[in-house]
């Protein structure tokens, strides 16, 4: 696992983001625009999936980026991966907003649970699949949803998710596995068996 984390740190994506941020910290405006283009779409997709609210997702991403700009002059090469830091800030802001809300979606609100997941998915259009997934994700416990979104929708490696969520890699694996079971349960109507009950 340690080697996975080290491999993630050595991945080719980390250095350019860091170099851009250091350049921005030294007054390079173009580097700032490049960072917006690289980070904002990914952070927005994550925030929008978690919050299911576009304007709220925009607020969260804007706040994350402003915090990034403010910390830029103190950022040092090799300190951390910029995208990991940004995802983590976004995740914390999202969590704050989710906790401030009253629970609005429960597992019972998942649309049209099917008796057999595979059969149901087979008959759906891609749009319907994406919508069904969105509904099922909303029914997952928050930490499972974070892990599933980061792993299976944002495509991040487990070691990076572990750093974002401040947990071990094994805990990430556990959360994503339980999250997938939860998705399957939500979509196939077996929620009671998996213990999620009515909320």
């Amino acid at each position, binding site marked *: 696992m340690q080697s996975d984390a080290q491999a993630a740190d050595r991945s080719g994506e980390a250095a350019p983001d860091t170099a851009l941020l250091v350049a*921005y*910290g*030294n*007054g390079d*405006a173009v580097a*700032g*625009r490049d*960072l*917006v*283009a690289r980070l*904002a*779409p990914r952070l*927005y*997709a994550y925030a*929008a*999936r978690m919050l299911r609210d*576009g304007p709220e*997702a*925009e607020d969260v*991403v*804007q706040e994350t*980026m*402003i915090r990034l*700009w*403010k910390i*830029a*002059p103190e950022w040092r090469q090799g300190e951390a991966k910029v995208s990991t830091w940004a995802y983590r800030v976004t995740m914390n802001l999202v969590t704050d907003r989710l906790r401030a809300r009253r629970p609005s979606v429960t597992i019972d609100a998942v649309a049209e649970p099917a008796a057999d*997941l*595979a059969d*149901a*998915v*087979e008959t759906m259009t*891609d*749009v319907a*699949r*994406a919508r*069904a*997934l*969105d509904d*099922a*994700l909303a029914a997952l416990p928050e930490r499972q949803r974070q892990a599933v979104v980061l792993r*299976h*929708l944002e*495509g991040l490696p487990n070691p990076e998710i572990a750093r974002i969520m401040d947990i071990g890699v094994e805990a990430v694996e556990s959360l994503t596995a*339980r999250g*997938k*079971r939860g*998705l*399957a349960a939500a*979509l*196939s109507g*077996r929620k009671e*068996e*998996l*213990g999620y009950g009515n909320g």
Partner: protein
Amino acid sequence: MAMADEITSRDDAALDRLLAAGRNAAPAPGADFLARLEADAETHLPRPAPGAAPRPVPTLGHRLSGWLTAGGLATAAAAGVWIGFAAPDTLNSLAGYGTTATATDDGFTISELVPTPEQAAYGE
């Protein structure tokens, strides 16, 4: 809260199809929003610290002001010396004393120490 059965391979494949559809339908930020973020980046762009800024090139006025200051000081010093010599006579006149007051132990009178008008004019 025991987790029940594992996902069947058939369900797992179905989930993968759902997740693939989800990846393809990722929420995307609007152009206006991205423009706002770029404007924020510009607003918060760090400016060079004052100590790191290059020193401005001195203007002609800056260069001359130093010489003018020194010239003014020199003029004031010279005026002070002249006043030092000339003042006793003037003060004595104003005070109503004569100009033949006896000088010190050396036996010189003040009038002997004060430069004549010709001597004073020579320095100008």
